[in-house]
């Protein structure tokens, strides 16, 4: 039952994340890439110095992977992410969309929200970003609005707390 008359889909949530978010993601990937590069250099040196055998090409394959794999993360993925990541808080629910290859939509009614908290790592602080985390009585129901402007994030937290406090029903 309840077959739709016309194909319907979830619309995009209204707001984008902070414009500084792509720079932050790019920086995170770059830090990771540095580590991978170090590993790659180590592996290449090993491949050159040890006597070559049937496994040598495997080492070179690993080196190539370690050099190439971080490239999307520091080039185009952050801007794609920025286009996909969206959020919206209404009087009734939170709607978050995120992902790159796998796109995830999460909708949680505010009447079922149990806790609202915000986190900020050292790198995020440098970029002036903050993540808002909304959790429900379900362990599967933790929703994050990541990489908001610091001030906006605190505003969202205050709004969420006010709305959830006004709906006193049992959150299960």
């Amino acid at each position, binding site marked *: 039952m309840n077959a739709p008359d016309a194909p319907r889909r979830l619309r995009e949530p209204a707001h984008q994340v902070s414009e500084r978010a792509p720079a932050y993601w790019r920086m995170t990937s770059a830090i990771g890439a540095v580590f991978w590069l170090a590993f790659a250099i180590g592996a290449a040196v090993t491949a050159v110095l040890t006597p070559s055998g049937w496994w040598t090409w495997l080492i070179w394959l690993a080196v190539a992977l370690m050099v190439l794999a971080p490239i999307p993360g520091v080039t185009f993925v952050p801007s794609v992410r920025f286009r996909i990541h969206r959020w919206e808080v209404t009087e009734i629910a939170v709607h978050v969309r995120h992902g790159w290859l796998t796109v995830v939509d999460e909708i949680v009614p505010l009447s079922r929200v149990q806790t609202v908290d915000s986190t900020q790592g050292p790198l995020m602080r440098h970029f002036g970003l903050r993540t808002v985390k909304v959790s429900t009585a*379900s362990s599967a129901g933790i929703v994050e609005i990541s990489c908001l402007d610091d001030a906006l994030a605190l505003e969202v937290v205050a709004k969420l707390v006010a709305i959830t406090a006004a709906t006193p029903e049992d959150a299960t």
Partner: protein
Amino acid sequence: MSTPETPPTPPTPPQPPVPEDEWQRLAGWTAVVSPISTLRQAVIPVAVGAFGAGQANPLIGLLVAVGIAVVAAVIGLIPWLTTTYRVTPTHLEVRKGLLNRTTLTARLDRVRSVDLNSTLVHRALGVTKVSVGTGVDEGQINLDSLTKESAARLRRELLHATPSPSAAEAVEPGGEASGDEGSTESTATGGSEVSPASVADDGEVIAKLDWSWIKYAPLNLKNLAIALGGLAAFFGAFSELIPWEQTLGLRVDDGEINGRPIESFLDMLLIAIPIAVVVAVLVWAAGSCVGYVVRWWDLQVVREQGREGTTLRRSFGLTSTRATTVEEAKVRGATSTVGPLIGLAGGADLNLLTTGLDDNFPAVLPTAPESVVSTVGRDILGEDAFSAELTGHGPRPRRRYWFRALIGTAIVTSLALVPTVLIGVYGDLWLWWLPVAVLVIGFVLELLGAELAHRHLGHALTERYLVVRSGSFTTVRTALQTEGIIGWRVKQTYFDRRLGLAQVTAMTAAGREYVEVPDVPVETAVALATAATPRTVSEFVE
């Protein structure tokens, strides 16, 4: 140690009408039960320690053992001496701890479940362990152990009694859970004037164990796997210690057993293996039936009138008994599972989705005939959600499942090719039939699984429930109250987007905390979520 207001009376006063605000102690037998349970955890180190010390001098070994027993007994006395509890008109309060005194307080109207659990030791002493569940994620309040009478009284006070006049008028027939029974049941709803003590003992029996269900016990492959694992672990651990040579007269030398060449034993194996298999099957059948009897003895599921709405009580067990009572309003749905062998025999399992219990996915019944499962399920769910007509997910999932089956077969077959090629190249034996056999069997099984997975996919929305079915060889059908849905997650991988499918998760606090609707066409997914929880979702749909 002892609180100042605790009078020096015996631990359990014999007369039932105890003043409600008087602190009560645990049963005197606690002083026996808790050292035993402490010792049982410590029995191996204790034995090792005593044995090690006894190597040097038997007297020291004996002293060590006695010393440990004394320490355990003293430790066991502590809970009895330090734990007290009382039920006030509004709260359950428990004080415990020797150095860190803690006071646990639970509002009576927040008490969702009471679990009475007695092991063999408990039962021999006539005591029982009480666990009280209050909220969702907070732990349970445990009282180990109370006498049977005080445990029964406590359960009644917590879930059924109407201790004050103000609470008495709170019990209305139009409560949240009384809509559940509606047509099927009238006695419990009309029973709000009956005194709580009498109601507690004669509720409406929803289900009782039927001994003909025991035929499903040997078909339960999950138990078989556990038993085999245990057996393997046992022999793995002790094979060095078992004196094969002395007891069986077996001696294995190079290529010979007891001096005879191994080839002659291979002929014997042809006879021995079938016999062994038959004996093992018989032993398994008998053993699983015995286990079934011990576990499910005297199972009863009873609906009673509780403080707010009705409660469900499930009690069973032969050596250790267990009685779990949960508010029916906290039951958010149910799951029926049909395993591969059990399904062929016409059986199914029934589990509840609840909140506030230690195990939020409790089995209502042992494996029972499907008709019983659907009858009991209908009774508990309050409507015929399990037999609702399901909407399939169309041809797209089938294409995906068949494709995955082909890939799976290809991978397994090429894996089987590796040893064949290696043996063929390095030895002279060409096991050409091995990959062919893997290919044929794998192909048939994978395609059967894919087709079943496609046929079993389905969902429906009834008046109050979201019903989902999925699974290939094991079919799982879940009915979740739409009221109990506390969020949605719609996930689309890259391949999902190309096929127009979505993986939908309904978040809930009950049961395993989520219900999945796999491989559903994305437009159906959005329509389903909107129809199930229109207030939450509709504003985000275009």
